[in-house]
């Protein structure tokens, strides 16, 4: 009998990832599958892994073929598939355990032709949502269609789908062969050909972002082949729609192509070469020739302008616009012309360019924004709604800028509308990043009396609240609401005279007011040796054949038990019993590997009664939540965010019941924790980053209680910074195991009864610290920037730039030096050496050091200036000297008498500035920042003649280069360096007798992780290091300050993360050997005459594609270039051999790149710059 599902896995040289992928398929909770592995002519161990898999599991079979490309391999796999359904999986990705069970469950229910599930990206630093699919998978939709739900146009991935094979073959669907972008020409037509489609909001596919040296297809946007294939792919879809007579859909699709597909290629024109630009204009205009004339109309004005210029092939103007978009767009307020609003973009009103004014007209951009901060049912039955709202780009600068009306929307039209009370909210302006306008008067509050909320319209999904914003010549309405983070008190549910009612922001973003369905309602729960008994009431006429049904929230798992119902009485009383062992058994089948992407460590079960009608069991507010230990797991019976009963199977975890700020700005937490015996520590992890921080966590095992205190600022930590950096911090707890650095952390949750008291807010200096809720019950600490309200936010920053800075610039210059070191994150490097030299000489200058986020404490010889504060802008405007080692703020325009000393940060291996032009990874945001600021520099420090020529190639700098040697090397060459190193070791807690390996990798430009942040790529294997060097060594791990990623968990005694340590010089002094890749530390280490070992597994890719070398690094490297951790270990174990083998290279490197490093470079710089 054929299997229900066939999974086709094309494979080409994926030995590194394949096993994980195949294991994820083998462990599917849906057992009735076959896996067709198509080896597309691999030359590595791929086939061996597949053969072994086929031998172990008879559901797997291998098809081998000569290399024919991904599309060809998929097609061949589909031809031999026998299942009722077919899916495609790329061999480096992972399929969560419930994926096919969930997709198949939907299809069995709906009869649709295929089902499509949510996708998440998986990288070295964790799993994150796929933003371009956010609108597609916001909620589950069975039996829909792209014509009914147009957002499906973005659903172009093949691997997140389960196709009915009859549908696949009937429509002769085949992937194009020999091209990039195989998916889109199949998936978009499939969406139109299908009679109906299921959209599953659960994650059913984990898409791996590779960390290796290879640039993936989507990372190669200036690649000509990528451009051509992408254009061909979108063209094939567009033609398909045209031939099917789907003109409206073609227009919509073509618009989307401009908005998404081709825009990616347009946006890199400034980094592309002439050939690429020519091809782009050809292909884009070819596409536009066949598109409707108004295809760009639905786009935002900025995109319309770019496509207008592309249509004209106006390259210089287009480059101007691209630069404007990158640097000024967010801070340029719109302008009003004759009642309409226009973008104040380049060439507006420029008669020579004659761009039609309509191109600039703002419409889609003027989006109404509504945020709800407070939803409160009052005792008289009224509902208070408070928050803020404004029209994007226009803001609400004055009390009368806008009027906000709350509208109660019913199923058949508006039921009521009420004016709201405007509120003065300067804090909102401070929170918003865009700098268009002030939002000081965006606040509102309104109380809806009960007679505005008719119960007859309050069934679920019927009554919603919307806002209408009028003012500044516009009237905008929205029913889409945001919750600020941390969110306000939980979704309120209150009991009315006869029913519980709720007000909530639903999954579709609308604010719904509805009666909670409490036809089934729990009244009591009991725990009896592993059996959970639930009692309650049920309003049901037919009470025969009552069942209690427990449904797993992820997947389609369902358990069914008898339900006792009293035959008389109204409502009926019910009793049901659930053996917890059944839930645990299901979990074993269900998931352990893929859990983290969707549901944390817990598996949630919802509880229903069924008679003739299925009812979800409500959990009244009066009913207490409880958790019990069972076989090492914690079984919690709790209220869902919308008031229903759920059972959660999870690791025992702390539940915070009390949280408070002390007057010292410390956060105290306490609550319950049914902890297994042992010592624990609290782990704070910064979201979307790699920062971690450990705190003591006291557990009273007998009482099942815990207590912890979180210090946010003024932390005494020898390894890292002195305060938590700005951002969102999440809480976890893990056992303290001492030797291995800690076991798997478990999540910390908030007691649902405590939610009403959150968020709690305090201030520490200029910072705002908020402890509150993320989602439903996840505790979250939000650390604000070290800025006052009138300094925070895009608008205030624009005021500081455009008003304060110029006004300060007119004031007398100060005899002061402003130091900007690594964007305010450290006290180190060349600025520190120069500062210490100046202080030593005592020439009376005032010293100001820029500090971001209070990351470190500056020495007494300098005064800290908070980054981006008004003091900082004052200093930029008035300090006679600005000493920077890289980043120089855009706003700085040196005035007469003001000197900017660009010290750079040592020698450099990787290409910089202008040398990056034409490289795939060059970005507009990156290139100009370093190529254009040289006009502000007065002096540029160079460590050597060799680096001087590299600097000249990198930067168009015409003024004086101070070829003085590297000042920062002075710090390493001081006579007392040995004792300084020992002192640092002591501070870091390195045990006596252990040697220190400093591992300092740099980031990989193609692995972008947010603004100016990148991942590390392949790093040394921590386990191998530990196994080989654990006895005698300590590893200090120092990632580049723009990199994210960890080598080991915080608290690991062997691998210590010192990435936040304020001084890498100190770390170098404390180390015996440096392992690095392409960082500038190699120059310092050579200056110190200490050994260097290079871990460069991606040497060729880095040299040829990713970044390129500024020096012939692969020829002149003063140490071994190694590709495996084992080789690095061998080298570290025999450093004498390394020295001997690389003696000549080392000496040559030193002579070429460090000839001037004699410990007096800073003196020479000071002589040259500060003499006057």
């Amino acid at each position, binding site marked *: 009998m054929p299997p229900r599902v066939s999974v086709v896995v094309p494979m080409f040289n994926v030995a590194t990832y394949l096993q994980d992928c195949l294991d994820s398929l083998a462990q599917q909770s849906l057992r009735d599958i076959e896996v067709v592995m198509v080896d597309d002519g691999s030359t590595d161990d791929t086939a061996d892994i597949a053969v072994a898999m086929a031998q172990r599991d008879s559901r797997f079979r291998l098809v081998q073929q000569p290399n024919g490309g991904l599309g060809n391999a998929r097609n061949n796999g589909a031809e031999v598939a026998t299942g009722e359904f077919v899916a495609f999986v790329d061999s480096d990705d992972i399929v969560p355990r419930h994926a096919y069970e969930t997709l198949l469950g939907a299809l069995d229910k709906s009869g649709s032709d295929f089902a499509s599930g949510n996708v998440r990206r998986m990288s070295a630093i964790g799993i994150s949502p796929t933003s371009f699919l956010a609108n597609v998978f916001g909620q589950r939709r069975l039996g829909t269609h792209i014509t009914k739900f147009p957002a499906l146009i973005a659903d172009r991935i093949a691997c997140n789908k389960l196709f009915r094979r009859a549908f696949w073959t009937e429509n002769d669907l085949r992937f194009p062969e020999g091209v990039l972008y195989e998916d889109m020409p199949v998936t978009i037509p499939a969406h139109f050909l299908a009679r109906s489609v299921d959209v599953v909001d659960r994650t059913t596919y984990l898409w791996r972002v590779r960390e290796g040296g290879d640039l993936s297809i989507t990372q190669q946007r200036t690649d000509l082949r990528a451009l051509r294939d992408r254009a061909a792919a979108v063209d094939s879809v567009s033609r398909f729609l045209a031939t099917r007579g789907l003109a409206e859909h073609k227009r919509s699709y073509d618009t989307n192509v401009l908005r998404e597909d081709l825009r990616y290629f347009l946006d890199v024109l400034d980094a592309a070469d002439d050939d690429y630009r020519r091809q782009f204009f050809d292909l884009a205009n070819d596409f536009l020739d066949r598109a409707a004339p108004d295809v760009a109309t639905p786009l935002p004005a900025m995109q319309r302008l770019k496509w207008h210029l592309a249509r004209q092939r106006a390259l210089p103007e287009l480059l101007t616009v691209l630069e404007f978009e990158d640097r000024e767009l967010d801070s340029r307020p719109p302008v009003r012309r004759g009642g309409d609003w226009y973008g104040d973009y380049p060439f507006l009103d420029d008669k020579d360019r004659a761009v039609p004014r309509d191109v600039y007209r703002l419409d889609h951009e003027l989006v109404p924004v509504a945020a709800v901060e407070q939803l409160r049912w*009052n005792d*008289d039955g009224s509902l208070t709604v408070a928050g803020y709202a404004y029209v994007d780009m226009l803001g609400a600068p004055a009390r009368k800028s806008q009027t906000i009306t709350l509208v109660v929307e019913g199923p058949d039209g508006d039921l009521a509308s009420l004016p709201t009370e405007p509120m003065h909210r300067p804090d909102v302006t401070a929170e918003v990043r865009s700098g268009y306008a002030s939002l000081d008067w965006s606040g509102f509050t309104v109380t809806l009396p009960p007679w505005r909320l008719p*119960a007859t319209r309050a069934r679920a999904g019927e009554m919603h609240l919307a806002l209408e914003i009028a003012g500044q010549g516009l009237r905008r309405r929205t029913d889409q609401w945001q919750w600020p983070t941390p969110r306000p008190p939980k979704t309120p549910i209150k009991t*009315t*005279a006869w029913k519980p009612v709720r007000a909530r922001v639903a999954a579709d973003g609308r604010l719904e007011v509805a009666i909670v369905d409490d036809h089934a309602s729990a009244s009591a729960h009991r725990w*009896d040796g592993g*059996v959970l008994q639930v009692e309650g009431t049920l309003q049901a006429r037919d009470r025969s054949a009552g069942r209690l049904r427990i449904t797993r929230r992820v997947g389609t798992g369902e358990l069914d038990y*008898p339900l006792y119902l*009293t035959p008389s009485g109204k409502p009926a009383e019910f009793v049901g019993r659930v053996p917890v*062992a059944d839930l645990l058994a299901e979990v074993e089948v269900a998931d352990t590997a893929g859990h983290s992407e969707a549901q944390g460590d817990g598996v949630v079960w919802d509880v229903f009664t069924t008679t003739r009608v299925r009812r979800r069991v409500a959990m009244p507010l009066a009913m207490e939540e409880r958790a019990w230990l069972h076989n090492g797991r914690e079984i919690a019976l709790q209220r869902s965010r919308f008031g229903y009963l759920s059972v959660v199977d999870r690791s025992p975890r702390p539940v915070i019941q009390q949280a408070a700020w002390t007057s010292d700005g410390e956060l105290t937490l306490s609550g319950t924790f049914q902890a297994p015996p042992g010592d624990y520590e609290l782990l704070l992890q910064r979201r979307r980053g790699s920062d971690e921080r450990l705190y003591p966590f006291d557990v009273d095992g007998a009482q099942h209680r815990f207590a912890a205190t979180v210090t946010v600022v003024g932390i005494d930590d020898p390894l890292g910074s002195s305060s938590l950096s700005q951002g969102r911090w999440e809480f976890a707890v893990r056992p303290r195991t001492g030797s291995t650095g800690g076991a798997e952390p478990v999540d910390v949750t908030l007691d649902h009864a405590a939610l009403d008291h959150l968020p709690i807010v305090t201030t520490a200096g200029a910072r705002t610290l908020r402890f509150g809720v993320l989602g439903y019950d996840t505790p979250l600490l939000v650390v604000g920037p070290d800025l006052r309200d009138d300094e925070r936010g895009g608008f205030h920053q624009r005021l500081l730039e455009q008003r304060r800075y110029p006004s300060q610039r007119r004031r007398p210059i100060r005899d002061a030096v402003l130091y900007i070191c690594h964007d305010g994150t450290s006290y180190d490097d060349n600025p520190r050496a120069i500062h210490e030299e100046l202080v030593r000489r005592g020439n009376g200058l005032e010293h100001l050091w820029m500090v971001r986020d209070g990351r470190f404490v500056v020495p007494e010889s300098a005064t800290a200036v908070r980054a981006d504060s008004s003091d900082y802008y004052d200093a930029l405007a008035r300090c006679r000297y600005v000493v920077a080692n890289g980043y120089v703020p855009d706003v700085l325009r040196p005035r007469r008498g003001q000197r900017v000393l660009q010290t750079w940060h040592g020698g450099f291996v990787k290409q910089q500035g202008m040398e990056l032009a034409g490289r795939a990874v060059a970005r507009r945001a990156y290139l100009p920042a370093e190529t254009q600021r040289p006009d502000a520099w007065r002096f540029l420090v160079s460590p050597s003649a060799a680096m001087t020529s590299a600097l000249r190639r990198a930067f168009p700098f015409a003024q004086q280069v101070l070829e003085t040697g590297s000042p920062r090397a002075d710090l390493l060459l001081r006579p007392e360096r040995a004792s300084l190193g020992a002192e640092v070791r002591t501070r870091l807690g390195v045990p006596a007798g252990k040697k220190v390996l400093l591992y300092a990798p740099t980031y990989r430009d193609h692995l972008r992780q947010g603004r100016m942040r990148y991942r590390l790529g392949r790093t040394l294997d921590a386990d191998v290091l530990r196994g080989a060097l654990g006895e005698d060594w300590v590893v200090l791990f120092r990632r580049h300050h723009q990199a994210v990623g960890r080598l080991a968990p915080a608290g690991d005694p062997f691998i210590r993360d010192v990435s936040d340590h304020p001084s890498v010089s100190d770390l170098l002094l404390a180390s015996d050997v440096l392992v690095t890749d392409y960082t500038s530390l190699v120059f310092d280490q050579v200056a110190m005459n200490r050994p260097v070992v290079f871990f460069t597994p991606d040497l060729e890719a880095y040299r040829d594609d990713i970044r390129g070398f500024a020096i012939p690094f692969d020829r002149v490297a003063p140490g071994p270039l190694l590709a495996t951790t084992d080789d690095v270990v061998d080298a570290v174990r025999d450093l004498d051999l390394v020295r001997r083998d690389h003696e000549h290279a080392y000496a040559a490197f030193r002579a070429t790149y460090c000839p001037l490093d004699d410990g007096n470079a800073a003196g020479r710089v000071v002589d040259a710059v500060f003499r006057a």
Partner: protein
Amino acid sequence: MVDVKKLVLLIGVGRSGTSAFTGILRELGFLVPQPEVEPDETNPRGFGEPRWAVDWHTRLLKSVRVTTIDSRPAAWAKTLAVGERQEVADELRSWLEVQFVGTERVVVKDPRLSWFLGLWQRCAADLGVEPTFVTMLRPPTEVLGSARQWYGNWQNDASRAAGWTNIMVHTEKEGRGSRRMFIHYERLLADWPGEIARLGRLIDAPDLLDVAADRRDRVAAFVDPSLRRQTPGWDGLDVPAALQQVVDRAWAALEPLGDDEAGDRPTDGLDKVRADYDAFYADTEAIAQSSVRAAQNARGKRSKPAPVESTAPAADQPATPAPKRKRRRRRFLRLRS
């Protein structure tokens, strides 16, 4: 084939040690259906009686005007008729099915259960479970003395003594042919492992033959030999001599059953006692006719006789009341203040 599910039903008269035996079984892993009747001063360690069973039996007994310790032999026909109603059996079966979710051993104790042995037996059989009836044996004078001490004298000693006889001899008859055992309360307190082993052999539960040490400790902590506080003898009990003789004869006939492994000793003597008791009760009822009539008249003047309660609507009654006229008044989400 070994039955996996074990249902132990404790029958007999209250104050005879049923709570202690239920408590022991609970410690040995039997489920006592929840919630239970709350402990009180009459039984501080808990009754071990499921609240539902007590309420449900009470409702059924009330519907046919039978009391828990009813002395009328004719009451058995009334409770038998109730137990034969389909909806009654359906409800019990539904409740019992839920109790077996997540467990294979259930013990139900309620003195009222004695009136519905057949019903319980049928419903258990429907679920594939053969019940085991366990009757606690305690000298009637101790039982009556304890009842008088803790329950008061709303029912006089004579009536209680007659009720004890009625229930004990009739439940013995009803339980014949079923899996059953009789346990002396005194022996239970003195040697609970022995008595539990006896039950283990009867229901084929090897773990009860030699109770694990941890459970043994828990049971030992629970069993309190001082629980048996009453001293035997008729002194202090206001029971006519003729009735005393009947009760003594019944006890004499019942007592040997406690020595019996499977409770299937010949019961000719008990048949004679039961017949004699029925005749004795008929005689006394006839003698007391004037009192009965006077009581009926007095009640008739005060109020009409209450209708017989039913757990389900009668066949000629609609299942649900006729719909009320819809009220047009608009309702709002007004909160309770």
